[in-house]
C-alpha cells in the first residue's frame, strides 16, 4: 500500500454486478495507471465501511445497490472524497447531475467518456476540495424513490405469514390500540400502519374516515342509521357488523 505517498490517487469502486465491477476495474487501471483501486465493493454498506477505513480520494458509486443506494453512500461520504456516480438509466439523476455539475458515467461505460472524467478528476484533485452534495442528494432521493400518492396494497401479518392485500378488496380499517385491523370480504388481518398514516396514503374518494377509529370503503357502505340507544351506526353491504360514526361524518353523510 502506498497510503503515505501523496502522489497516488486512491479509488473505491462500488458496483453490485460482478462482471461490471471487474470490467470497470480493468478500464480504470488501463486509463489511469497512476491511481490505485483500494477497494471494490458489491453493496452500499461495505462501500461506506471501506470509505471510512481507507479514506479514498475518489469514489465511483453505482446508484442502485443492495442495502444502501449510491445516494446514501454519497451522503455518508460528505465532502471526504470526490464522487462519480455510475448509472444505467436514471432520468432524474442524470438531469440533476448535469445541472449540479456532478460527475457521472452512463453504463455501458464508453472509454472516451471515462477518459474525460479521469482528466477532469485529475484537475479537480489538484485545484479543488470535494464538495458536499447533500442538498442535491436529498432532492434526488425523493425523486428516485417516489412515495406513491396513494397505496394500492397493504402488507398484513396473518398468523405467521405476511400477506399483501389489494386496497380494492378492503371493506374497512379499524384501529385497535396498537394495530390496525384490515377487513376484506373473506378475511381479516392486522397491519402496522396507523389510521393517520392510512388516511394520508389512501385515495380519499375510495376510502372515508367515518370515525376516529374507522376508515371505510365508500363502495361497501350500505346505510347509516340510529340504533336503539340513539347512537349512529354504519352498516355494510352483506355484512352483519355495525361501525361507529362520528358526529362530523354524520353531517357529511347527510349532506350527500
Amino acid at each position, binding site marked *: 500500500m502506498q497510503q503515505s505517498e501523496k502522489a497516488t490517487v486512491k479509488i473505491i469502486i462500488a458496483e*453490485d*454486478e*460482478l*462482471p*461490471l465491477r*471487474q*470490467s*470497470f476495474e480493468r478500464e480504470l487501471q488501463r486509463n489511469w495507471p497512476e491511481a490505485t483501486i483500494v477497494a471494490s465493493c*458489491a*453493496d452500499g*454498506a461495505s462501500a461506506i465501511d471501506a470509505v471510512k477505513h481507507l479514506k479514498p480520494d475518489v469514489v465511483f458509486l453505482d446508484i*442502485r445497490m*443492495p*442495502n444502501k443506494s449510491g445516494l446514501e453512500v454519497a451522503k455518508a461520504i460528505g465532502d471526504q472524497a470526490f464522487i462519480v456516480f455510475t448509472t*444505467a*438509466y*436514471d432520468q432524474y439523476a442524470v438531469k440533476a447531475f448535469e445541472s449540479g455539475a456532478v460527475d457521472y458515467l*452512463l*453504463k*455501458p*461505460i464508453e472509454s472516451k467518456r471515462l477518459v474525460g472524467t479521469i482528466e477532469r478528476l485529475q484537475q479537480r484533485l489538484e485545484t479543488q476540495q470535494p464538495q458536499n452534495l447533500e442538498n442535491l442528494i436529498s432532492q434526488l432521493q425523493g425523486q428516485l424513490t417516489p*412515495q*406513491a400518492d*396513494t*397505496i*394500492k*396494497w*397493504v*402488507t398484513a401479518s396473518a398468523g*405467521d*405469514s*405476511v*400477506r*399483501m392485500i*389489494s386496497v*380494492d378488496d378492503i371493506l374497512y380499517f379499524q384501529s385497535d390500540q396498537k394495530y390496525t385491523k384490515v377487513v376484506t370480504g373473506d378475511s381479516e388481518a392486522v*397491519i*402496522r*400502519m396507523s389510521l393517520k398514516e392510512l388516511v394520508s*396514503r389512501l385515495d380519499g374518494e375510495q376510502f372515508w374516515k367515518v370515525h376516529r377509529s374507522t376508515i371505510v370503503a365508500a363502495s361497501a357502505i350500505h346505510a347509516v342509521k340510529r340504533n336503539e340507544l340513539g347512537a349512529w351506526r354504519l352498516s355494510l353491504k352483506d355484512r352483519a357488523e355495525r361501525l361507529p360514526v362520528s358526529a362530523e361524518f354524520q353531517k357529511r353523510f347527510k349532506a350527500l
Partner: protein
Amino acid sequence: MSSRQNGLNQALPYESKWRWGYQHYPVFGWAWWRGRALIFGLGVMMLTIMTGIGMLIDFDDKSVAVTTTIIFFIGVGGMALTGATLMTLVRTIVDVGQKQKVVITIAFLISLGLTTMFDAWSSGEIERAFAENSSQKELIAEASKVSLDNVPLAMVNLITAFSLYFWLSAGIAFIRYWREPSQLRAYFAQRELSEAKAEKHQAQAKLSMLQAQIEPHFLFNSLASVKSVIRDKPELAEKTIDNLVDYLRASIPRFDDDNRVQTVTLGQQIELCDKYLEVMKLRLGDRLSYSINVAPDVAGHVFPPLVITSLVENAIKHGIEPSTSGGTVKISAALEGRDLLIGVTDTGVGLSHHSKGSSSGLGLANIKEQLAVLYGGSAKLNLSADEAGEVTASIKITDFLK
C-alpha cells in the same frame, strides 16, 4: 315503403327455444308468411284428403262428396291463411309506427271475423251435406239436438272454437308482433354491451402491453454486462445477446391483422422468463439461482402476455437485486383439476424488508386488473411471505379449463 321491410325477410338475430322453422323470421313478413303457408297448407291438404275420403266412402252421391270436400278445403284454407295474409300485407305496406300497429290490430280483428265466417259457412254446408247424404244421418241429427241443451258443453265448444279461430288467424304471431320490437331492442342492447366488453378487453390488453415495455435500466445494464464479458467470454456474450434479443422482441407489442394483441401460450411465456433469468444470471452471478417447474399439460394453453414475466421481474427487482447474498427464483405452473395455478417465489430480502409495511405495487395492481378484465372474479392474485422471507406471488384461475 318502410325501411324495415328489408329486415322482414331476414331471420331474427336472437335465438329462442320457443321458435322453430319459419318462426325465426319476423312475423308478418313474406319469408314468415311463406313458411307458415307451407306448414298450414300441408295441414289443410291432409285434413281435406282425409275428410274427402271419408265422405266418398260415406256418401251415396259421390258428386256431393266432391263439392263438399272443395267447400271444406276453401273453408279451412281460408281460416288458416286469412289472418296471416292480411296482416302480412299490412306490415309490408304500412310504414313502421303507431299507424301500422293500429292497422294490424284492425286487420287482426277483421281476420278473426272472416275466420269465423269461413267456419260458419263451410261448417254449415258440410253439416247440411252430412244431414242429407250421410249413411248415419239419424245419429248426426240426434247428436246435434243433445248438444244444444248442454250449457257447459256449449261453453267448452265456444272456447275451443275461439281458441281455434285465434290460432288460425295468426293470433300467436299477432302477440309476437307486439313483443318483437322490445326483444330486438334488448338483443341489440345486449350485443352492444358484449361488444363494448370485448373492446375493453382489447384496450386493456394493449395498454398492459404498452405499459410493460422494457425497462431502460434493465436494457442498459444488460448491455453493459455483455460488453464486460465480450472479450474474455465471447460465447457467453453471444448467448446473452441472443437471450436479450428474444426477450426484447417479445416485449414489443405485437398485433395481428385485426389489430388485436397476438395470443401467446403459457409455455412461450415461461420460455421467455427463462431467457430473462439467463440474462440476469450473467449479471448477478452466484447471487441468482432459479428453477422452472411447468407441468407439460399447461404449456400449450393461451395466457395473457407479460403477466408471468412481470412477476418474475418483480421477484428479481424487489427480492434478489436488493439482497447482497441474492436468492433463488422458482417458477411453477400446473393444473389442479380445472384450475390453473401459477407461482413465482423468491428467497430474497422478503416482503417487509423492502416495502416497509406498504407498497404502491403498481405492477401488481396492473396485473390484477388485467386478470380481472379477462377472467372476472375467477382470477386471484396473491402475494404472501413466510417467516423465512420467501415471497410468493401466486395466481389462481378457477375453471381455467372449461
